[in-house]
């Protein structure tokens, strides 16, 4: 092995390790940034290594490509608002898949004109362009729907699934054929065309709300295409990065579909979006945002100040001990926990006091309404545990409400509001609560005791 080759291999090996280490760092929010810097370093190494590759003869075009890419990539990275994240990720899948597809086509074009394409090589190349091209159009559709330049609603027609499956079967058939007869250029390009259609049609029937699952799946496809590139050109770092990507995208799409109560088959075979959407919508047409215990735990674990607002639901669930446990965990991590006791929380005067005292929560953590209300502004999280009427903003704003004029806890002034209750049922006063539809509010549904137990474990394991 000559020194140059050695250098290339060393950079690749190092890059592979750095990628893995970098992704691993994402398991811990406080180490994630450092880890991603390591991954970026790995990327730099891999690029440098490749530039030293013996096959590379001229650099002028490469520089053009790099400059153009950087010019587009920098603003995409720095200035796209966080709210536009989904479409941002979707479009980057487009770029990734495009790169993989083009490399595949170039390779095929070169080989078919030169030494000819081997069967194994054809398998890799075919896989690469097949997944690459359907990801290109799929990502394009997803971006369009999310960004709004394509209609966001699902576009459906009878027999859609059959058509999609058929198209996919045709593409696969062509791929199989090519493996046996690699030289059939017409088949190759037709396959690309069909794959484009598959991508388009696959995403067409899917509504905006289900897009994250699709994006994740496309992530996985793009990763597989990269890995196939690696097989085609015999490059390990591509294989490894592609496999990481593929696994991650696949897993994420499963996790997300689970979170949306869809079966995995439903996700894989693209029949998303067809059943009526089940996301919570209130009578007033506002959406409710449900959240997982893990996410709540992360918010609490990294919050500087948390205000707990207990209500009758905490009493019903007899969750007072779990409340204390959670608070202890948060405090152990350096957060501060206060309890906001509304005068009429619960069902008897002092109901919350009785329970919190039972759980041995020190009196000096309890704040009554007048003391705590000015402090919500500075709270990172208001954790509402089975309270409802006492945090209902209708009391402030809705003259028609039966509780209009009752002073309430201003939880909606906190940075985030998390509400633990079992359902969307109203409380004692029997009225709806707009707080639950506030964009700042996330609902963790379930019995308060069970939810809190989960939160305790999750915060502990952060």
């Amino acid at each position, binding site marked *: 092995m000559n020194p140059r080759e050695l250098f290339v291999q060393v950079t690749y090996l190092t890059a592979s390790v750095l990628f893995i280490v970098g992704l691993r760092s994402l398991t811990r929010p406080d180490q994630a940034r450092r880890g991603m810097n390591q991954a970026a370093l790995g990327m730099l190494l891999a690029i440098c290594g490749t530039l030293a590759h013996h096959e590379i003869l001229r650099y002028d075009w490469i520089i053009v490509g790099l400059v153009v890419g950087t010019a587009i990539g920098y603003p995409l990275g720095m200035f796209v608002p966080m709210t536009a994240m989904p479409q941002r990720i979707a479009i980057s899948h487009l770029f990734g898949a495009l790169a993989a597809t083009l490399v595949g086509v170039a390779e095929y074009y070169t080989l078919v004109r030169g030494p000819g394409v081997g069967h194994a090589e054809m398998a890799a190349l075919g896989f690469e362009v097949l997944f690459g091209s359907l990801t290109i159009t799929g990502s394009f559709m997803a971006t369009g729907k999310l960004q709004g330049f394509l209609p966001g609603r699902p576009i459906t027609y009878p027999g859609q699934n059959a058509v999609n499956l058929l198209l996919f079967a045709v593409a696969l058939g062509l791929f199989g054929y090519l493996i046996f007869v690699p030289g059939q250029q017409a088949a190759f390009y037709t396959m690309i065309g069909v794959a484009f259609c598959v991508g388009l049609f696959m995403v067409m029937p899917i509504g905006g709300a289900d897009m994250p699952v699709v994006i994740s799946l496309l992530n996985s496809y793009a990763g597989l295409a*990269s890995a196939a590139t690696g097989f085609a050109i015999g490059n390990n770092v591509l294989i490894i990065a592609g496999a990481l990507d593929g696994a991650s995208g696949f897993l994420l799409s499963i996790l997300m579909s689970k979170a949306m109560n869809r079966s995995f088959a439903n996700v894989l075979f693209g029949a998303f979006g067809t059943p009526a959407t089940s996301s919570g919508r209130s009578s007033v047409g506002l959406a409710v945002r449900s959240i997982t215990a893990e996410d709540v735990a992360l918010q609490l674990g990294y919050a500087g100040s948390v205000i707990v607002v207990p209500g009758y639901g905490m009493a019903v669930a007899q969750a007072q001990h779990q409340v204390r446990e959670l608070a202890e965990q948060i405090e152990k991590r350096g957060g501060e926990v206060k309890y906001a006791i509304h005068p009429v929380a619960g069902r008897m005067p002092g109901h919350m006091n009785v329970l919190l005292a039972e759980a041995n929560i020190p009196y000096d953590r309890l704040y009554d309404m007048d003391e705590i209300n000015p402090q919500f502004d500075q709270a990172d999280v208001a954790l509402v545990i089975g309270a409802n009427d006492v945090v209902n903003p209708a009391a402030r704003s809705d003259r028609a409400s039966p509780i209009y004029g009752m002073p309430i806890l201003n939880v909606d002034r906190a940075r985030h509001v998390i509400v633990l209750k079992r359902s969307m049922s109203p409380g004692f006063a029997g009225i709806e609560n707009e707080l639950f539809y506030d964009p700042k509010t996330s609902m963790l549904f379930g019995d308060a005791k069970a939810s809190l137990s989960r939160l305790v474990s999750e915060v502990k394991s952060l």
Partner: protein
Amino acid sequence: MPSTGIIELYVFLLAGFVGYQVITRVPPLLHTPLMSATNAISGISLVGSLVAAGADRNMVSTILGVIAVASATINVVGGFLITDRMLKMFKRHDQPDPGPKVG
């Protein structure tokens, strides 16, 4: 002794396994940064593109390669930058205790 293709299959499987193990331990709130991180890493297809663009094999290959290089670079640059922006948000805020306590 098996062919390189077979060994590469091992590499692929093992890497997938590593990916699986790592990703299952990423907490859901970091799923978005994770997506953009894997996206940035998938910019590694730049490596293949560079060869296509620079090997000077034929015009088609070079042109396709240059486009590929540009696309992949977008992902690398944009992906890492945005991941970093997102992860910045997970810093702890250590703020002073406001207000009085009841006794």
